[in-house]
């Protein structure tokens, strides 16, 4: 009756050893448990890392510029817009919802920023506007849009698919109206212009990455020692150290990479250091991961996506959590819109269109966030965006025709949902006794 999987086995006779056990886990046991989790469908980042290796090999063999420091930094910058919007999409997917409006909501954020900064130059009444108040205004607007979508969905019990589809059309219209018949609007404010192209002095690459690795390591050790004190099994020290070494090596490699002069041609000024945009992605990664995994709010997001009824019976205000989820999505779409506008240093009537929505959903799903709710991590946005951008970047390098681009992008998306479905199935298999 029961599968030969030892997690799920009920041995009739209670053997009290396991839960009460206070012996520290050996590294071997820890790895064993991790492998078991993978087999039961919690595959985590595994397929992506594999996919990235394959992408790297394929494109590098076709064009030797792909794995150059310069191009790897290019990918980092090119993925920023997708990653920031996809962070918000992760929260939506965790809730078991979908937000089809993020492309044009991001455009509202970018276009509002560009238009308000332009008007601050022409309209004396608006001369008080500058980047530091225009950006919050734009983000407040996109957050309010998320609030509107969420409120409509929860108040009238509408499917989010339909409401945000309506949003997709309506906000596209709003973008067209705000941009007006000028066609394109240049952004002149130096801070917003340079947001996506500014780099930190080289020493900061080391400082930022060291701080990141140190923070994670200190937290791991603190948790382990607190667990030991509480009589719970801590994560083995050897595993924490191994993690730190791996992160340290990867981090050092990244810092080294960022600090190689990647200027194009002898005439260009030297270019080295970590892009500011990478730091922004990292900060959002930390803040949003904290929100999702360490707070009640994040816990409730998972709970609502896992079992709405259970969440309701536990006293969680389900509708409020859903509205808040859409507000996170609106906020992050706004951030992404500003990043994209900064990349292009202008906005136009086509802002927010094209493949943006598709790439954002693909990024979240490729990264391992389930379309079916309740399963996923914030970091999946950044990993997925890395995959999407690598493919886009590589094909740009290869000079391939648009037909090939469409086919390849389609295949990558397909691969993502197939992986999602497979991991879901194996989880169900191991879940249902």
């Amino acid at each position, binding site marked *: 009756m029961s599968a030969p999987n030892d997690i799920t086995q009920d041995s009739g006779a209670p053997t009290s050893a396991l839960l009460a056990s206070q012996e520290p886990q050996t590294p071997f046991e820890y790895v064993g448990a991790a492998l078991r989790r993978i087999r039961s469908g919690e595959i985590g980042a595994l397929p992506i890392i594999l996919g990235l290796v394959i992408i790297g090999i394929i494109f590098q063999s076709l064009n030797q510029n792909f794995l150059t420091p310069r191009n790897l930094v290019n990918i980092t910058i090119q993925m920023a817009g997708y990653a920031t919007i996809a962070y918000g999409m992760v929260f939506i997917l965790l809730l078991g919802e979908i937000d089809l409006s993020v492309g044009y909501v991001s455009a509202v954020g970018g276009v509002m920023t560009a238009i308000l900064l332009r008007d601050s130059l022409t309209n004396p009444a608006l001369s008080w506007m500058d980047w530091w108040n225009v950006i919050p205004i734009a983000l407040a607007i996109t957050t309010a849009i998320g609030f509107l979508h969420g409120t409509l969905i929860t108040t009238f019990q509408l499917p989010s698919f339909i409401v945000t589809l309506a949003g997709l059309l309506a906000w596209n219209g709003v973008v067209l109206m705000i941009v007006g018949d000028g066609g394109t609007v240049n952004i002149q404010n130096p801070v917003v212009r340079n947001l996506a192209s500014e780099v930190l002095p080289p020493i900061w690459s080391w400082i930022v990455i060291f701080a990141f690795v140190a923070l994670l390591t200190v937290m791991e050790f603190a948790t382990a020692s607190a667990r030991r004190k509480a009589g719970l099994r801590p994560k083995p020290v050897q595993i924490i150290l191994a993690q730190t070494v791996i992160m340290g090596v990867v981090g050092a490699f990244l810092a080294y990479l960022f600090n190689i002069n990647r200027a*194009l041609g002898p005439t260009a000024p030297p270019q080295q250091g970590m892009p500011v945009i990478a730091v922004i992605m990292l900060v959002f990664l930390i803040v949003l991961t904290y929100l999702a995994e360490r707070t009640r709010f994040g816990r409730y997001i998972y709970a609502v996506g896992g079992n709405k009824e259970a969440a309701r019976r536990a006293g969680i205000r389900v509708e409020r959590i859903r509205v808040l989820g859409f507000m996170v999505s609106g906020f992050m779409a706004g951030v992404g819109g500003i990043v994209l506008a900064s990349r292009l240093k202008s906005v136009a009537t086509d802002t927010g269109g094209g493949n943006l929505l598709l790439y954002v959903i693909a990024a979240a799903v490729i990264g391992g966030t389930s379309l079916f709710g309740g399963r996923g991590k914030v970091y999946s946005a950044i990993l997925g965006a890395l995959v999407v951008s690598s493919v886009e970047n590589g094909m740009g390098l290869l000079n391939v025709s648009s037909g090939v681009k469409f086919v390849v992008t389609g295949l990558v998306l397909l691969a993502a949902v197939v992986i999602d479905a497979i991991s879901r199935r194996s989880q169900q298999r191991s879940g249902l006794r």
Partner: protein
Amino acid sequence: MLLPDSASSARWEADDRRFFEGAFEAAGVEYTIVNAEGSAQTQLTQAEQAITNGAKVILMVNLDSASGAAIIELARANGVAIIDYDRLTIEGPGADFYVSFDNESVGRLQGEGLVAAVEAAGLEAPVNVAVLNGSPTDNNATLFKNGYESVITAQFDSGAWVRVADQSVPDWDNQQALVIFEQMLTDAAGDIDAAVAANDGLAGSVIAALQNQGLPFIPVTGQDATVGGIQNILAGRQSMTVYKAIKAEAEAAAALAVALLKGEDTASLVTGAVNKVSVTKDNIAETVIADGFRTWEEICVGEFAQYCP
């Protein structure tokens, strides 16, 4: 009046609609203007409704040649005159009239503009040139390409120019164009001396990519005479844009429609291609400004004011 969509270009809703409204109001005729929002099926339904409502003349921007032909047959069967506007319906019996810019000559202007700009910049052979085409699914993008290729192919053949990259931009998407051009730069190790960009949006992507890399500006073409494009021309970041006098095109088509409606002689109206002009730094005032298509107020904002007269 059947418009195609509001995504492929801002002009249909932003420009054509107001110019047609103005012309029809002035002529005192009854009219409706509808937009099919990208759906050929919707456009066919809209044509049927227009005929049911007693339309005598239909102006159509088709979504594709086949669906356009179906609408022409429908109009003909009901004795309604039909005018192809901006896009030619190649298939089927053909419309009664066709009013448009000549898109190939738009492309030729871009080609000529780039040749002149490269010369003016004093670039020495071999000049590395990248080409950013419009959307692969837009027939007009193909026509533009035919146009500029007819001019610049000779440069490549003579060895004066070298084609370092040539890619289409899906949906004319500026963000994708930015990535594509960044990758062109990467592949060419930054050594791109000039670029064909099929419109101002794509030109903006080229400019942003160069700025992001700290590279100097290069000769680059454009189209549509957008505010951003003209600002870039003034600041010396973009070489030229093609100003298609949409107003003139719309008014010519409207005049033709009114004449058909009133049963007047149309022969005098058929005069050939409508204006389109290559706009460079030197003739902004005489073209887009003089036409009322753009104003100095919307262009001369902030840092760009210093370049204005």
